[in-house]
C-alpha cells in the first residue's frame, strides 16, 4: 500500500467544538482514567486483606491535599462517565437522536455530574466531621 504523506486540511484547530463532541471524547478519556481508580481500589482491598501498614500508607497519601484533589477529580470522572453512559444506553435503545435533544441531554449529564460529585463529597465531609 502506498503511504505517501499527503497534506490534510486543518480540522480540530479551526472548527467550533460542539458540546456532544467534547463530551464524547471526555467519555473515552474518563474511561481510561477510571481504570487507574479501579486498580487503586483493588490495591486497597489487597492492603486491607494483608497488611494494615500498607493500607495506612495508601490512606496517608489519599488523605493529604493532593490525594483528596485526585479523589474529587476521579469522582467527577466517575459520574461523568456513568451519566454519559446512560445517555449512550438511551441512544442504543433508539431514543434522543435529534440534535436539540442531544445537546440538552449533554447539558443534563454535566449538571447531574456536578450535583452528584458535590453530594458524595458533602456526605463524606459530613460523615468525617460529625
Amino acid at each position, binding site marked *: 500500500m502506498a503511504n505517501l504523506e499527503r497534506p490534510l486540511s486543518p480540522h480540530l484547530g479551526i472548527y467550533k467544538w460542539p458540546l456532544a463532541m467534547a463530551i464524547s471524547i471526555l467519555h*473515552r478519556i474518563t474511561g481510561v482514567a477510571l481504570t487507574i481508580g479501579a486498580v487503586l481500589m483493588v490495591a486497597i482491598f489487597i492492603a*486491607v486483606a494483608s497488611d494494615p501498614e500498607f493500607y495506612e500508607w495508601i490512606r496517608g497519601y489519599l488523605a493529604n491535599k493532593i490525594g483528596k484533589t485526585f479523589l474529587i477529580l476521579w469522582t467527577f470522572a466517575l459520574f461523568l462517565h456513568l451519566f454519559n453512559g446512560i445517555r449512550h444506553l438511551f441512544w442504543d435503545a433508539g431514543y434522543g437522536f435529534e440534535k436539540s435533544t442531544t445537546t440538552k441531554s449533554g447539558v443534563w449529564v454535566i449538571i447531574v455530574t456536578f450535583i452528584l460529585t458535590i453530594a458524595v463529597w458533602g456526605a463524606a465531609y459530613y460523615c468525617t466531621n460529625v
Partner: protein
Amino acid sequence: MSLRTPLSEAKGLGSAKEGAGHWWLQRLTAIALIPLVIWLAFAVAMLGDASYETVLAWLQTPYVAVLLILLVAATFYHTQLGLQVIVEDYVHGWLKIATLILINFLCIVFAVAGIVALLKIFL
C-alpha cells in the same frame, strides 16, 4: 462461491462478522455497574474517616462483600471491553495484538486479585 479475492481473504480485510457479543456485554456490564457504582460512591463516602478498623468491619459485612465482588468482576470486564475498542482505534499492527493481550491479562489479574482479597477479608 465467494466473490472475494484470495489475497483479501488471507489478509482478513472486510467485515469481521462478529462483534455483536462484545457490544452487548459492554452494555450489560454498564447496566450492572450503574447501581453498583452509585451505591459504592455513597457507601465509601459515608465510611467517614475510613480507618483500618472501619473499613475492615465494613468489608466483612456479607452484602458488601457480595456487591463488591460483583463490582470488581463487572468493572474489569467493562474496562477490558472498553480499552480493547480504544486500542483497536488507535494502535495497529503487531503492537495492537501485543497491547490487547497485555490488557486482557492485566484485567484478569486485577479482577482475580481483587476477588481473592475480598474473599480473604470476608471468610
